[in-house]
């Protein structure tokens, strides 16, 4: 599925916040590609920089406090680092669609959903009011909202959370973007609705041939939906691989911690789920260390003093961990990993 020119290509993206002297590093040299038609999952705990990554790419971070540096942020042929604010605006909504975590508060309460869907097409494609409304109706049908004609005139507060997330998806897909960024799209929804929404996103990706970046902390969602995974910790990508490779051969101490905290992540009949001790550091660790060292079950003496380099385990699998053989060996016999082999 991976072709020569990726939809989105990011190299060494760093973001820091705050005034000089007291700057806080939120992202530290993040690199990844999203191939055409692929779903890349960005996984990690809250605060690890998943959302900041996407906001930085879209130019949505407040200019006055965020400093963004990158070797490359390339959307197709367009260099997003050099794009003017106006050019970035036409990228947002037209070439990159975005859906967010909380559908209950993500729609303007005082406008109908039909208006809010039609608005994107009127802004980017210059459609007439009538044509945009007709397209909005088709889109509501596309995201499988029952009785779409009636919903067109509904206000957000008249719809359920799942419905509203479908409306958000309709807005994101209105201009048939080449990339969809879904930032924890199911976190605020019921479990049954979660599955429906993920299925919808996966189906639409196929139908429309777009790429998807799926930001999530749910490895279950990753396993069922994504093609490739990038695991993030404290502002860095610590491991990246196709889903099957990652789950067959987890190699970073943090990936191991995530898998162990799943049902079946340790033994067949555990009565209590394992957890990763401690909390995510608020911002990235000192530059000369692996940020996960303190919480890591596999930490070596060198982890606290040297930053582990990115190493290729296989062609598509890279990992920044000094003890990756031990990690892989320790997880080889867990039910979760065995299920993937």
């Amino acid at each position, binding site marked *: 599925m991976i072709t020569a020119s990726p939809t989105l290509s990011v190299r060494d993206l760093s973001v820091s916040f705050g005034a000089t002297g007291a700057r806080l590093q939120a992202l530290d040299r993040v690199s990844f590609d999203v191939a055409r038609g692929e779903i890349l999952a960005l996984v990690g705990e809250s605060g690890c920089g998943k959302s900041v990554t996407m906001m930085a790419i879209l130019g*949505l971070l407040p200019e006055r406090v965020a400093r963004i540096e990158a070797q490359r942020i390339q959307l197709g042929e367009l260099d997003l680092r050099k794009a003017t604010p106006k050019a970035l605006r036409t990228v947002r909504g037209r070439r990159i669609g975005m859906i967010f975590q909380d559908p209950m*508060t993500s*729609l*303007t*309460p005082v406008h109908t959903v039909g208006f809010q869907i039609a*608005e994107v097409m009127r802004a980017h494609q210059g459609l007439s009011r009538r044509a945009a409304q007709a397209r909005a109706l088709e889109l509501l049908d596309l995201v499988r909202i029952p009785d779409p004609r009636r919903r067109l005139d509904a206000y957000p507060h008249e719809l359920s959370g799942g419905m509203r997330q479908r409306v958000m998806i309709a807005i994101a897909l209105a201009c048939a973007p080449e990339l969809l960024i879904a930032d924890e799209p199911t976190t605020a929804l019921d479990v049954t609705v979660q599955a429906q929404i993920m299925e919808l996103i996966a189906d639409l990706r196929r139908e429309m041939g777009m790429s998807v970046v799926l930001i999530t902390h749910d490895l279950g969602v990753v396993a069922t939906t994504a093609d490739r995974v990038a695991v993030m910790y404290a502002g860095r990508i610590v491991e990246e691989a196709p889903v099957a490779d990652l789950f067959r051969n987890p190699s970073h101490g943090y990936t191991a911690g995530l898998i162990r905290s799943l049902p079946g992540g340790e033994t067949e009949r555990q009565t209590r789920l394992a957890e990763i001790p401690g909390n995510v550091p608020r911002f990235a660790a000192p530059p000369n260390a692996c940020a996960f060292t303190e919480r890591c079950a596999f930490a070596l003496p060198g982890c606290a003093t040297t930053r582990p380099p990115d190493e290729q385990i296989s062609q598509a699998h890279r990992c920044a961990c000094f003890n990756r053989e031990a990690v892989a060996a320790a997880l080889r016999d867990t039910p979760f990993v065995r299920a993937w082999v």
Partner: protein
Amino acid sequence: MLRYAATRLVAGVPTLVLVSVFIFSLIHITPGDPAILLAGDNATPAQVEAIRARLKLDLPLWQQFGLWFLDALRLDLGSSVYSGKPVTELIMQRIEPTLVLGLTTILLTILIAIPLGAYAAWRVNTFVDRLAMGFAVIGFSVPVFVIGYVLLYVFAVKWRLFPVQGYKPLSEGMFAALHSVTLPATALALVFAALIARVTRAAVLDVLGENYIRTTRAKGLSAPRILFIHALKSAGVPVVTVVGIGFATLIGGVVVTESVFNIPGIGRLTVDAITRRDYPVIQGVILFFSAALILINLLVDLTYALIDPRVRG
């Protein structure tokens, strides 16, 4: 909606009754006697008594009120003690300048204050924001008559762009009328614009932090569209509330402004009536203002429903 409006109008009637009782008591508690003023400097006590009897001021207070109230029910608010003209007729004669002045003021206020407040919120903590809010503080702290005299001095006396005082009725043309109320309306508008700009800024600032504003950015909408179509409309309820309150305070401002600029409106009528203790006119004018207020409150409530669908149903 229509039913709701009708219910609210009917509910306003008891309010008006209470207001008239209150005003009636207040007028008669304050010192001063129209009969003495009317009779002139050299009147004998007998003459004064005669006048009192003619005006029925010798009756007990509750009887005076009862007589007035029964007439008021038939929309007869009595007659001026001085000119003898019916109060309703006096009000109708004076209503046009006040309406033109009031509406021009409100229009100016909204045109100045709402875009200013919204823009200040958009550029929060920048120079533009500080400048706008600095202006708001000045507008809010300086009394309307001071602003009125300053405007008069600069624009009417020095530069002769506008008349110093007076009012040209609409019958002499729309332009003439608007030209004659420009200065007083600006003086009044500056005061209310200050208040409304501050409230608009606060309300819009609140909304700009909402998730749905992030959505509008992700949609790639233009800044004016995000600010005015999404943020400002969502922040509409508190803004409309303050505009409504502004209308109410405007009545006080109109009275002062009409005196400063010598405009023959209801404000002037009120001031003249109070200085001459013209009881029926005072009573009628205040009743008229109360009815206007009730109507404004109703309009404000109906506007809520118009801008925010969550208020409906």
